[in-house]
């Protein structure tokens, strides 16, 4: 009676085009977020008490002509919509104002200080992800065991710690040294004096300077990954398809890797998107503690004057960076999870 078996109504199988559509949606979303950030940035400006020209141009604008010039350049006398257009035009052409402290264009400052931050944040994020996921997987696999308890306990403590305080402790122990143990790392800065940064010796020197900051940020952020991975993996291990995989005769290691972890990576990827915003914040405090001349330190320095243009500029760059990073994470997620593509 095999011919009685009817096939179910046909449904289209996923075509590669649907990933393209997914990418399109996400890119549009990112552009929307970017627009929102530009608007928020614009209004932050307007919240300033007092006359913007006087506050922002403080110390630089002496005569009435200077003030008028300043106002014209930044459209401060015009109706709000026109001001916004001017602001947009300025921002998109790279005119982010001039620093009150350094008297140079903010865009120049930002470009100068960009790469140490990228290096710091990039390395820490990658390390935090890799180590955190590894810890989470092994904690979940031997749930309740000593490794799990130890790992969960310590990550919880790290999670409750301000990352810059951890940095201070690490400096105290590993850079300054306690008692008989002398410190082995520099206490701050990016380069030792007298060393050419682009030479091999210089690169190693830079790496040595970045070790403690990277270690601090990594320790601070791996907690989130570890905790989420552990919890997601425990969720997945309870699912029916795991039993199916074991019933097929697969080895436990393979079941874990190919089925459970693969699925548990999905929520972990989502979390990494949220984490990026925090890592950016961490860059500010860590660069302050370790005196790394990056965007974070630039922001912190701008607080004292306050150097409004710099704060605005770094805010914009940080937000744009987070949006782009989020977009990349989302695109990667689309490759991992076929369900979002249809």
């Amino acid at each position, binding site marked *: *009676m*095999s011919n*009685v*078996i*009817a*096939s*179910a*109504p046909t*449904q289209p*199988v*996923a075509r590669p085009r649907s990933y393209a559509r997914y990418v399109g949606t996400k890119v549009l979303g990112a552009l929307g977020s970017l627009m929102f950030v530009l608007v928020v940035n614009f209004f932050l400006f307007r919240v300033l008490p007092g006359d913007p020209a006087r506050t922002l141009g403080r110390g630089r604008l002496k005569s009435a002509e200077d003030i008028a010039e300043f106002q014209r350049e930044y459209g401060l006398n015009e109706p709000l919509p026109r001001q916004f257009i001017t602001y947009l035009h300025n921002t998109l052409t790279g005119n982010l104002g001039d620093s009150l402290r350094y008297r140079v264009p903010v865009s120049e400052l930002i470009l100068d200080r960009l790469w140490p931050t990228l290096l710091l944040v990039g390395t820490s994020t990658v390390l935090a992800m890799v180590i955190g996921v590894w810890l989470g997987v092994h904690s979940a696999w031997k749930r309740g065991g000593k490794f799990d308890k130890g790992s969960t306990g310590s990550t919880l403590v790290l999670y409750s710690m301000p990352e810059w305080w951890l940095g201070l402790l690490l400096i105290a122990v590993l850079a300054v040294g306690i008692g008989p143990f002398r410190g082995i790392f520099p206490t701050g800065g990016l380069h030792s004096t007298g060393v050419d940064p682009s030479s091999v010796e210089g690169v190693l020197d830079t790496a040595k300077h970045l070790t403690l900051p990277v270690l601090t940020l990594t320790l601070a952020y791996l907690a989130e990954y570890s905790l989420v991975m552990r919890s997601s993996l425990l969720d997945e291990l309870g*699912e*029916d*398809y795991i*039993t*199916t*995989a*074991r*019933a*097929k*005769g*697969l*080895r436990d290691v393979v079941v874990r890797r190919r*089925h459970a972890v*693969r*699925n548990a990576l*999905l929520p972990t990827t989502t979390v990494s998107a949220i984490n990026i915003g925090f890592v950016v914040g961490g860059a500010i405090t860590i660069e302050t503690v370790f005196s790394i001349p990056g965007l974070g330190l630039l922001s912190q320095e701008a607080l004292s004057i306050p150097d409004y243009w710099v704060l605005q500029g770094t805010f914009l760059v940080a937000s744009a960076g987070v949006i782009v990073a989020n977009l990349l994470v989302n695109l990667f997620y689309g490759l*991992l*999870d*076929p*369900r979002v593509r*249809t």
Partner: protein
Amino acid sequence: MSVTDTELLTMQGVSVSYQTVEGPLPAVRGVDLVVRAGEVVGVAGESGCGKSTLVSTVLRLQPRDAAVSGLVEVLGQDVQTISWGDLRALRWAGASIVFQGALHSLNPVQRVGAQIAEAIRVHEPGLSQARVGSRVTELLEQVGLTGARGRAYPHQLSGGQKQRVMIAMALACRPQLIVADEPTTALDVMVQAQILDLLGDLVRDLGVGLLIISHDLSVLAEVCDRVLVMYAGRVVEAGTSAQVFTDPLHPYSQALSGAFPRIGDPAARYAPAGLAGDPPDPRALPSGCSFSPRCSRAVDRCSQIDPPLVEVAAGRPVACIRVGEP
């Protein structure tokens, strides 16, 4: 369907008990079961009666905190004590399980064809990519799907299609014994009929032994040779499917059988359907017969004696002291 004498699955006195903080929880209590080649055996019972736990012992898939006693022999091997390597070889190639595909028995991020291929590669690692691919297509066609379906992800398939995929996957390594755990639950009636026909055909064409678990007695009546009825971890009645369905002896089987309407039987329309109450909590089983609190024919003796499984006729074991009494 010719039933041979080869016993593919033998269960003798199988008991499964979960270790909990409050003490051991008996899920299965002394079950005997045999499935022969070419035979279809059904196990019926409400959810919570222990049938799924029983089935999990066939390939040693019971949860870590479950203690199994008694003999579970598959293709002559004692599944609970053989080595890990032998167990892995037995899994899927000796006996396979058709899980409820409509739920989450398939990996959501892997194409279904790849999941079938995975089973093949475990047991026949030397096979070339092309050979594996053609076997997957063959299997899918055998269950009424096209080969192209293999490229789909589970969420793109309907419940019936996913169930067919599970069946195709269960056949992948040419097992001699197949266990189907609730193969038609969560499917609509039309699709149920198709799946049952498919299973019946496969048994006939391939000569495998099939063990079906279901809470739906009518499903089992349709396709099984023999049926066992379970309640609170024990077998309370067994017989041919015709016997159990049309002439149930145990009050529980009677209630189960009456719960499913029979077309053409006017009395069924007026008889009260369904069974009041809930299955007993395994931690606090009623004294005597565990069904007595819900039984319409219970007397005082029933709560004092736990009725043993006794053959009231050839091949007709029943666990009730009131059988034969008015």
